[in-house]
């Protein structure tokens, strides 16, 4: 279990007064209460996508404007109250997990699309617009917002910015950072700063780049300017099944070496194939050790040519089966199993941890072998899903939440996998963030001095460590300002 710091009793004691003060700043609207203070309703906010951890907050504020966000932050800053920003709460690393003495600022009511500009290929949206909502707003004109996390129906652009989220198609289109032009940023002091906008690149420091992926440590984002792209003429997928993970790894190398960058290049290992097939009946070959889903884009003729080349490459590696979609429906059928992977694993085991390390792609066979060995020694099942083109590995570790020992083992197993990722030259997290989940592993990837430097940069934005504390940075080694409870 990951430790959370003890709440500041002075803040807890002032709860009623704090809630009243916040109500004055964020009044009720037709949408509902601006501030949630009663215990039953707070329970709805007690966790995020890392549901093994739960902690109702002191209060939840649901502002509807940047000005309200600024006012709430100014109040919290003046009163030494901690703040946990929250989008949709789908973080898989516990990034949005509340603290008992913290005010959650939920951005979900800031969900307006403010501007769509096709000539400049950008959209300005509030932080609480969902990822898919952006694409839906521009789809009629043939445009889309490229990063597509599997949670795109729910997760919000503000959360995406803070996690620098990726998706199945980031091999071609990049992650959130590649597709961002600007943000409206609110500091802990309540200062509103426009960073970037409709143009590319900053002339001075790249604050936009630093803020992206900063997990709510530096400030809040209330508006976001994103690139919108014209969708390709079409896309089609193929499925290739192989006899071993080594071979599938070689196929990935051969594809990248051929000069083709598919839009997606997804890998599943045997347990993942079986789980997905049982759930989605996508027609995956059950005798395969590993399976690749490869998607290409372009007009029909281009798709044919690319799929032909890919088929030829796969054919050199003695595939068990090769299935090239002829139609959009057949593509969907190929994707069906992969897209349902979380649900599928959820059926085998209601509780699982979704890990998220990245490895150099060439290390895949070795890493999967080691994970297999760990799975045996921990006595826990694991299914591996891998964004093969970019090395982002998602082992799903299955456990029984009713058995504390099983959960403890699952966490230890996950930690071992992430340490392995770092050991082979990779990193702790490719897209889900550090949050609370990987906080205590940061020392595996960074030296104390490197962490101190990062912590000092956090302090430059948030000197009293009020923003999303107890996340990202290990608790030992925090600056004094982060640990001394401020008189409230």
């Amino acid at each position, binding site marked *: 279990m990951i430790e959370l710091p003890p709440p500041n009793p002075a803040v807890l004691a002032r709860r009623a007064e704090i809630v009243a003060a916040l109500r004055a700043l964020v009044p009720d609207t037709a949408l509902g209460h601006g501030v949630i203070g009663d215990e039953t309703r707070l329970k709805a906010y007690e966790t995020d996508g890392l549901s093994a951890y739960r902690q109702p907050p002191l209060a939840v504020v649901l502002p509807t404007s940047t000005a309200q966000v600024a006012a709430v932050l100014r109040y919290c800053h003046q009163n030494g109250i901690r703040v946990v920003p929250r989008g949709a709460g789908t973080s898989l690393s516990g990034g949005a997990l509340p603290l008992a003495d913290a005010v959650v600022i939920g951005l979900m009511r800031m969900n307006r699309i403010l501007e769509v500009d096709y000539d400049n290929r950008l959209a300005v949206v509030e932080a609480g617009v969902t990822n898919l909502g952006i694409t839906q707003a521009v789809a009629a004109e043939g445009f889309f917002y490229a990063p597509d996390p599997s949670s795109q129906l729910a997760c919000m652009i503000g959360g995406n910015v803070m996690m620098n989220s990726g998706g199945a198609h980031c091999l071609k289109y990049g992650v959130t950072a590649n597709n961002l032009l600007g943000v409206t940023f609110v500091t802990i002091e309540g200062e509103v700063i426009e960073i970037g906008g409709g143009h590319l690149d900053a002339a001075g420091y790249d604050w936009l780049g*630093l803020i992206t992926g900063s997990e709510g440590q530096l400030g809040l984002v209330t508006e976001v300017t994103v690139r919108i792209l014209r969708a390709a003429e079409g896309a089609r997928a193929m499925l290739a099944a192989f006899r071993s993970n080594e071979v599938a790894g070689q196929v990935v190398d051969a594809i990248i070496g051929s000069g083709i960058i598919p839009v997606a290049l997804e890998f599943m290992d045997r347990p993942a194939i079986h789980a997905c097939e049982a759930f989605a009946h996508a027609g995956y070959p059950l005798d395969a050790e590993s399976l690749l889903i490869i998607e290409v884009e372009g007009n029909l003729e281009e798709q044919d040519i690319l799929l032909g080349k890919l088929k030829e490459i796969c054919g050199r590696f003695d595939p068990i089966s090769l299935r090239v979609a002829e139609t959009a429906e057949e593509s969907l059928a190929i994707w069906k199993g992969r897209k349902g992977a979380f649900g599928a694993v959820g059926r085998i085991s209601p509780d699982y941890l979704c890990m998220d390390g990245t490895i150099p792609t060439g290390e895949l066979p070795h890493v999967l072998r080691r994970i297999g060995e760990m799975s045996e020694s921990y006595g826990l099942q694991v299914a591996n899903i891998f964004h093969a083109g970019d090395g982002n590995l998602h082992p799903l570790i299955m456990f029984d939440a009713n058995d504390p020992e099983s959960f403890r083992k699952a966490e230890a197993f996950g930690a071992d996998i992430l340490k392995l990722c770092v050991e082979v030259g990779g990193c*702790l997290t490719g897209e889900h963030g550090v949050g609370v989940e990987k906080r205590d592993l940061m020392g595996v*990837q960074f030296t104390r001095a490197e962490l101190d430097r990062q912590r*000092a940069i956090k302090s430059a934005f948030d000197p009293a460590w009020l923003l999303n504390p107890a996340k990202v940075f290990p608790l030992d080694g925090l600056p004094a300002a982060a640990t001394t409870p401020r008189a409230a």
Partner: protein
Amino acid sequence: MTDLLLPPDEASLAEAVREASAARLPLAIEGHGTRRASLRPVQAARTLSTRGLTGITLNKPAELVLSARAGTPMPEIEAALAAQGQMLPAEPPDFSALFGADRPATLGGMVAAHLSGPRRIGPGGALRDQVLGVRAVTGDGEVIRSGGRVHKNVTGLDLCKLLAGSHGTLGVLTEITLKLAPRPEGSLTLAVRVAELAAGVRALSAGLGSPFGVSGAALLPRGAPALGLDGPVALLRLEDFLQFLPHRAGALRGLLDGHGAVSLVEGEDSLALWRAVRDAALLEAAPEQAVWRLSVKPTAAPGVARTLEDSFGARLLLDWGGGLVWVAGPATEAAHRAVMAAAQAARGTFTLFRAPDSLRAAVPVVPDEPAALAAIGARVKAVMDPMGILNPGRLRA
């Protein structure tokens, strides 16, 4: 020339910085010093160069990853990549001609200045997004790492992005790991003869808003006489497998119908044309002129261009769909004030990219930041360079 420190490796570079820090002696940081005439003149008696730190340290074509020491000349990296059919997707420019430099730029200098070429207009084209990892020496002489050698990495604060574009004021980059891409088999350009700049930007927007994969979108007010292109001409580049290009070009041409007469530039000519756009050679700035780089919304660019033409007869070259406005004009404070005002009115940004020392020392070379951000910036600078010895004055007075 000031005193030059030429450490042969990272450890001695860190040692040199530590000593300078202890003695509070400022250092100008450079690679080959090709862009000394850019931004503000640095206030330092001694120069520390990374040019002793050279060589590719990791090259994994199948993983699309390459690491090199910061002082490695760009041509060395580009040659190695060309030999394996790959490239840096950011298309880093070569400004040696623009600066009259007799040496090539180094990798560290490119990243520290965050310079990307025409492909920046697409989501994969920013150099900083291709910086997967860095090693750097902070102003107090400590070696730090950020990122790594894998494509997807969100572990901790992204200091790679902070250092990329920090112009050597937050740390001395010593080694950089980059993401690679396959080199496209073919390059083909549609040149659209447009009536004026606004019409040109509309043509570029139409192309960039098409599904045909336009990878470069530039606008030459005076054309490219060497290629027989009269101005103003809008250029749209397609890059892909050779067999895809004829069909794409046909489709794009159909889409551009009504924007102006279209001619095709193919093969080596297309490559040369985009090098000339990338390196701002087509700006044809006279040696005594100042050069500015503005970044605005593409649709705001024609207004900026007109203002600056009216104000001081600016020479212009537009890239990035119109949004990157290269400007050449007299190296005067009046011209600089006009550029600043135009960038501000367009809600964009500017850099005084090349000018005589006197002008660079006298004016803001990049826009001022809002006070709240400047205060954060000063604190971040103090974290990375506590004694303020790295490139003092380079970005702001």
